């Protein structure tokens, strides 16, 4: 057990060291949410009618946090493809540690890296005129971590099926963009036609963003357009998905050819 904790620790430490050494990467991954928030959000707010009870840019703020987490968590699993490609994965696979600790270590690395990015975006709230109390911030950060862990484990699960970078990045783009649009990040889920609404409900990101809406707009708890599920459902779905993803990924790692 303590070997497994050590393994998790050192896998996370390695990823953080590499994250810190690659400073350029942080800037480039932060660019995407910033563009969406200010260009898309800013532009759309002129078109969208203001009957949702708040400016559109504020409405999409939880969705932009979700987007930051989605991209950086899922794409953090690319490190698994690199580790396979450059052989480092073998160093981990022959070590006397449980395969689950490798998966959890990788998922936690993705979690930390994307939470750092989400926090940077979160701190922009005064710029868009949003009021967030100091007490809300730890809750939001905590929720970001939960969602990040869930999506990072999904990315790892997908990465276990791929050996090389090309096919992996194709499938990732194929999954990530629909996940983003079918998540309630940009519009309330309730406004979607039923078929798309069903897809949204299969998307863990939907629940993560819904939960973030509870934490970002606590006063507007009853607002019909902002919330789609109860907070308990949101958190339960994220927790169950995370567990299932980690379990399957661990089993996939254990499987030998």
């Amino acid at each position, binding site marked *: 057990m*303590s*070997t497994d904790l*050590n*393994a998790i*620790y*050192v896998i996370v430490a*390695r990823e953080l*060291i*590499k994250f810190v*050494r690659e400073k350029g990467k942080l800037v*480039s991954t932060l660019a995407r949410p910033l563009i969406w928030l200010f260009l898309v959000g800013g532009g759309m707010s002129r078109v969208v009618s203001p009957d949702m009870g708040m400016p559109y840019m504020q409405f999409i703020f939880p969705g932009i946090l979700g987007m930051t987490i989605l991209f950086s968590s899922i794409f953090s699993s690319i490190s698994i493809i*690199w580790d396979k*490609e*450059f*052989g*480092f994965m*073998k*160093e*981990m*696979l*022959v*070590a*006397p*540690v*449980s395969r689950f600790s490798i998966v959890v270590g990788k998922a936690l690395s993705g979690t930390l890296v994307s939470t750092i990015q989400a926090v940077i975006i979160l701190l922009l709230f005064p710029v868009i005129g949003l009021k967030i109390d100091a007490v809300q911030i730890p809750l939001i950060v905590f929720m970001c971590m939960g969602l990040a862990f869930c999506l990072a484990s999904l990315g790892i699960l997908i990465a276990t099926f791929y050996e090389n*970078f090309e096919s992996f*990045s194709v499938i990732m783009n194929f999954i990530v963009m629909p996940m983003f649009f079918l998540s309630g990040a940009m519009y309330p889920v309730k406004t979607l036609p039923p078929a798309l609404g069903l897809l949204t409900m299969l998307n863990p990101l939907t629940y993560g963003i819904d939960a973030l809406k509870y934490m970002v707009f606590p006063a507007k708890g009853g607002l019909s357009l902002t919330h789609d599920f109860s907070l308990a459902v949101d958190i339960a779905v994220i927790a169950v998905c995370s567990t299932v993803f980690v379990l399957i990924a661990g089993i996939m790692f254990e499987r*030998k*050819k």
Partner: protein
Amino acid sequence: MPIIKVENLTKHFGPVAAVDGIAFEVEKNSIFGFLGPNGAGKTTTINILCTLLSPTSGKAAIDGHDCMTRSSEVRKKIGIVFQDTTLDKELTAYENLSFHAYLYGVPKDLHKKKIDAALDFIGLYDRKDDQVKKFSGGMKRRLEVARGIIHEPAVLFLDEPTLGLDPQSRANLWEFISKLPEKSGVTVFMTTHYMEEAEICNRIAIIDKGRIIVNGTPEELKKMVGGDVIYLKTTNNKLAAEELKKTMGIGAEEKNGELFIQAVRGDACIPKLISSLADMVLSVRLQRPTLNDVFLKLTGKAIRDEAQGSGDELKDSIRSYRKKFDKK
């Protein structure tokens, strides 16, 4: 009890029998060499022994633990240097070793001491805070060997450890490896397709097309192709040959201006030759059979194929090129 025991091991990749019913044992604290050309099945065998692959049939055990059913016991007992490097090139030498120490549950208070000692052992202590991408091929290889023994494994696997190294670093690495059983109490299982490197092994198995064709000590194997050959240059070859026939009963033939004599123990024979020929001898040369001769005799072909080293280097540079561009 042998520390590695393999029985009737087979591994098929589709229609290809990469390993085709091999069996062997390795004694504790020895160096065992697995010798064979590219594609013979050496890496596949190592991958099965180190729990990364499961065999199609047969058994493999390390220190009494079955490699398939008791993988976690086996993983605790082994250290591996894979054919292709598995270092993290973005991390420093120290960080690579430290990662390994954590992964293998080396007690934390020993990390620094052990890592420093290992780096000192391989002569890289003053480079410990350099990123591995700045290291030469030989330095990386030595670092991997050091990493492989930091958790004090019972068996160290080395898959073509000198592939792609220049002769100087190759010689250094061999010197280093040959000291391991004594210095670290580890059994070494190594593969190579360089015959002359196999000389340091206590036992050698020659593998070709997935089958072991012979298994023995280097001396035993060489005896299979006959004894040594002595080449003599004398002031008068004809006279000398007659003299040898008369006094020692040895048949000597003349070839390219040299006398050519076959003997079982050539080194012990030379003093007698010289004393019986008195001052006719101008020069003496002893040629011992090589493992290459053994391989040639058993398979009818030479083992050598130097192209692979440069092929791997090429693969490496393509990968790092792709990494640079894809990541953006």
